[in-house]
Structure formats: structure tokens, C-alpha cells
């Protein structure tokens, strides 16, 4: 049986549906992210697990115990908020020890545990500081320590990094992952940042408009998106208007040119669909007769140097596609207006509505 389980969870606010038909089983020690744009219901779902919102219907079970109606202060769940939410009137040590003090643990046990936690977050000497004396990143580490100090069954993180600067964000996310793996704690992580979700999670739940779009590992979500929402929300995507020419043989046609598709086509012959492919799977140059590679030609619209990546936009007639290449010193880049040939493997593209 799963450690944390949400069954048919539904939540309405004033007759508008915020979350519906939410079913998820999370294994002990698993790190699951809820990924989606704002208003997709990811935070509402997290708040139902915390007990701040009650589901309109459905059940939430933690470690086999039905928690659906348990108030938040009886759930034994840890939570980290976007706004840190450290108690400003307490020192860092008192903040971390707060949950243990509430649980009336002996003072020396609290002291020992606080010390452990301070070491865990690499802030061993900050115990007597006040929150306002710490940087945002340090405050969020303390909030993490506070959430973990009383050994909760589940750790919930509600966009914990979105108030931080880009560099700190990258640093702290691997920190969070390290601590989570070290303690083996079951974790739910809410974010709207796809790179964050991809890099940190065991599994991702992509959400949109209150519904689950797809559940899978980062690799599955990125490489095999099952809905057009997932495909376009996670990563960059080129979309070519094509006609299915041979669904069985996995072929479609773009401007009269036949293209091989690596994955099954679930549309009838003659259907007008879109061929999806990621910019980084395209290459400049011909396919040199490889039947498993497709070829397109067109005029370069722009060449955009972005640092590690060079993005080339090519007008292939009726559609513009982006090609991402790694910057290399020797790279000879085409100029705007030049005619180029572009190739991509059949395997890398798929057909969507």
C-alpha cells in the first residue's frame, strides 16, 4: 500500500471547481512534484494534504490512516512556505525547536535535535541569530529545518524557491534534494518552474485547470508528453502543420514532403495534425540518405546567440522552426536569409492534435 494516497479528491470554492478527480499514490521516500501554471490547483491540492483546506469529496490517507478531516496541527506533516514564514520574534534555534516544544519534548532532546538540524542545513553557527539577520536563502534553509525537526511523516514544499534569486535557487534545490534523500522523507513539492520540477523529482504530476494532465518521471514527462498541454508547458516545442499520409507506416506529409514519425500515430489517414519536435533534437545539414532521419529545407530567419546555446529560426514554408545548437568556437553559423537543410531523427518527433 502507498504511503500517501489521494483518492478521487475534489475541491470546490464557491461552486467553481479548483481540483477534481485527483488520484495519486506516493511511495515512502518518494519525491513527487506538482507542476503547472498558477491557478491549476497544485497549491490547493498541497493545502488539502496539509489540512488547511478540506476536500469537498474524496479521501487522503497517510501511512494507512485516513487524514481527510484531521486538523493541520494533528497531522504530523511538515511544511515549507514560499514566504519562509519564520517566526520573527524567535531565534533560529527557537524556530527550529518550536514543533518539538509544542510536543512537550524534554529541553535537552530539543537542544540536541536543533543542533543536528543546524548541521544538516550547513548553518551550524546561526542558532542565536534572528530571521531578519539571515539572507532569503538562509531563511528558507531554516524553514526547511523547522519543518523536518519533529520528524514529520510527509514533507510539503509550496514553491519554496520562487522568492529567491536565480543562482541561490539552483543551489538550494540540490540542497533540498540532498537532504530529502539523506533522510528518506516522503516529499510533495509544488512549483510552476519546469526546470526545477525536472531536476529535483522522482515523479512529476503535471496539472492544468484543476486536472491531472500526466504523471511520470521527468524523462517520461519531457520526452513522451501525453497531452498537448504537457508538451507545450514543459520545454520548448516546434509544431509543424502536417497531414497524416500513412498512419500504419508512421508517415505524414509536410508541404508535399514525406516525414517519418518514430511513434504510433493515433489519427486517421488524411487528418490535419501537428508534428511536434524539440529544438535541441534538430541538426543543420542533410540526412545523408538515412531513412530514419527526416529532412527539411528553408531560409534562415534569425540566428540568436544565447551563450551556451545558439538558436536558429528557419522558415520552412508555412511554419517557422527553432533549432538549438550548443555554442562551439569552430561552429560555422549560417547567416539570416541563407538557405539551409535541417534534419532530425524520426524517433524524436510525434504527432499531436
Amino acid at each position, binding site marked *: 500500500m502507498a504511503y500517501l494516497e489521494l483518492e478521487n479528491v475534489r475541491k470546490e470554492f464557491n461552486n467553481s471547481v479548483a481540483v477534481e478527480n485527483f488520484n495519486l499514490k506516493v511511495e515512502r521516500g518518494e519525491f513527487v512534484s506538482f507542476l503547472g501554471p498558477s491557478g491549476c490547483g497544485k497549491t490547493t491540492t498541497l493545502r488539502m494534504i496539509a489540512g488547511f483546506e478540506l476536500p469537498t469529496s474524496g479521501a487522503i490517507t497517510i501511512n494507512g490512516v485516513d487524514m481527510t478531516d484531521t486538523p493541520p*496541527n494533528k497531522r504530523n506533516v511538515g511544511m515549507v*512556505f514560499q514566504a519562509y514564514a519564520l*517566526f*520573527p520574534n524567535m531565534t533560529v534555534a527557537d524556530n527550529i525547536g518550536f514543533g518539538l516544544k*509544542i510536543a512537550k519534548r524534554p529541553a535537552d532532546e530539543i537542544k540536541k535535535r536543533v543542533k543536528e538540524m543546524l548541521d544538516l542545513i550547513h548553518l551550524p553557527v546561526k542558532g542565536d541569530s534572528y530571521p531578519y539577520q539571515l539572507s532569503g536563502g538562509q531563511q528558507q534553509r531554516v524553514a526547511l529545518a523547522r519543518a523536518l525537526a519533529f520528524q514529520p511523516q510527509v514533507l510539503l514544499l509550496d514553491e519554496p524557491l520562487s522568492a529567491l534569486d536565480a543562482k541561490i535557487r539552483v543551489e538550494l534545490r540540490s540542497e533540498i534534494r540532498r537532504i530529502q534523500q539523506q533522510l528518506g522523507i516522503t516529499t510533495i513539492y509544488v512549483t510552476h518552474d519546469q526546470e526545477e520540477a525536472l531536476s529535483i523529482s522522482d515523479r512529476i504530476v503535471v496539472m492544468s485547470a484543476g486536472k491531472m494532465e500526466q504523471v511520470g518521471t521527468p524523462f517520461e514527462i519531457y520526452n513522451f508528453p501525453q497531452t498537448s498541454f504537457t508538451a507545450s508547458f514543459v520545454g520548448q516545442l516546434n509544431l509543424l502543420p502536417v497531414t497524416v499520409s500513412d498512419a500504419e507506416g508512421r508517415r505524414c506529409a509536410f508541404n508535399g514532403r514525406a516525414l517519418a514519425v518514430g511513434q504510433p500515430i493515433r489519427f486517421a489517414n488524411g487528418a490535419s495534425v501537428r508534428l511536434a519536435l524539440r529544438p535541441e533534437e534538430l541538426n543543420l545539414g542533410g540526412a545523408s540518405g538515412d531513412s530514419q532521419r527526416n529532412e527539411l529545407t528553408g531560409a534562415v530567419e534569425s540566428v540568436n546567440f544565447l551563450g551556451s546555446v545558439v538558436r536558429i529560426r528557419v522558415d520552412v514554408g508555412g511554419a517557422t522552426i527553432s533549432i538549438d545548437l550548443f555554442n562551439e568556437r569552430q561552429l560555422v553559423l549560417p547567416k539570416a536569409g541563407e538557405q539551409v537543410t535541417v534534419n532530425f531523427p524520426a524517433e524524436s518527433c510525434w504527432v499531436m492534435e
Partner: protein
Amino acid sequence: MRRFPLWSWFWFLLGTLYFFLPLLGTLNFSLRIRRDVLSLDAYNNALTDPEFIRTFVFSNQMAVMTILVSILLIVPTAYWAHLRLPQVRPALDFITLMPFVIPAIILVFGLIKTYSRPLTVFGLPVVPPLTNTVFSTNILLIFGYTVLCLPYMYRSVDNGLRAMDVRTLTEAAQILGAGWPTILFRIILPNLRTALLSGALLTFSIVVGELTLATFLARPAFGPYLALLGNHKPYEPFALSLISFALTWVAMGIIQFVTRGSGQGQLAGGH
């Protein structure tokens, strides 16, 4: 700085003069009870009058009670509005603004008329007459003061709550296992410390100097005493004015000090 028009300096200087000239004049005058000599006699006379002690102590007691009643009335209401009913906050803002614009004299008329008889609403007695005994008249006075000071206290508390993200702090405490009493006394009140202090000091200053309510309810307060003194003695009221002014400065100095001292500027209340 260079290109900024000169008239700004002019206005700034004018404002400063405007504010401090009367003060200097008062100080100068209060020291001249003896012809041609500067002396502190006026201060001595004023402070040794037993009536001064009596009214000053009375007003201080009223001020303390007013502060307690205000805090009990306002903190839970404002906290609750922040936490669960943000939509009633505009209404609260509006209501608590009203004592600013209702003259004290109208307030006291209403209080006297309403509470000098057993108050009936649609024929049912709700409150016994309050102006019959000294004790119950004091209660009426305290409630009157509470209304007068409502804007200051509410605004302090509201600013204090606004500065601390009530909802997230409450949820953070809840998820760590805290119940309501713990949240109120360990999280909310400690973080309202400077806000409450600031509201209390303002209330204090207002109550101690208040004239209208105390006069019409015929209570021996400091404000009416000062007014009376002004009609009879030439120098002493100015000495008391300056003392009161100095007390005010001290009070505001305390606010500033506590606000700074806590090192948490963003949690400061006040207006």
C-alpha cells in the same frame, strides 16, 4: 539636488518655524512669572497643586483602562479579519475611521442621552442607567475614550498585523502542532509588541489631555483641570503645557527606541 527649485527650502523652513515658534514663545513666557527674571516658579506652583496630582492620577488610571479595553476589543477582531475575513477589512477600516470625523461633543451627547436612562431597544431594557454612580460613569468615560482612540489603536494593530503575514505565520504554527492559544500568545502578540506599544502611547497622550468627554461627564480629569487653570492663572498652564509636551516627546521617543531596538523595522506598528 542642484536643480531643485529654491521655493522648496522656503516651504520647509516656513513649516519648521511655524511649528517651533509657538513652542519657544510658550517656554519663554512660562519662565517669566517673576518680572525680568527667568525662574521655574511656575513649574513649581503647577506641580505642587494637590488638584494637579489628583486629576493627573485619575486621568492616568482612565488611560490604562482605556488601553486594556481597546486591546481586548481590537486585537482579536483585527486578527480574525486578517486571517479569515479579509473582505470585512474595508468595512473595519471605514468604521474605525469614523471617530476621526465625529466631534467628541457629539459623541458625549449621544453617550449621555443613551446611557443616562435604562437603555431600551424596541421596548426591551438592555443596559441599566450608567450615569447614576461614579463607578459606572467612569465606565462610560472609558468606553467613550475607547471610541475616541479607536482609530489610533486599530490602525496600529492593523499595520502590525499587515507587516507580519498573519495567515502564513498562523498556518506555519498550526502545521507544527500549535493550537489557538499558543498561536495567539506565542506568535501573534509577541510580534504585535511594538504596534501595541505605539497604539497604547498614543491613547495615553490623548486620554490624559482630553477635555470634552471629561467635562460633560463631570469627571475630575486632567484636561478640564488644565482648562480651568487657564482661566484663572496666567503662567502655570503654560508650564503644564510644556510638561505635557515633554511627556509626549518622551512617549514618542520610547516608541522610536523600542521600534529600532527590536531591529525589526518591518514589524513596527504606528500610523
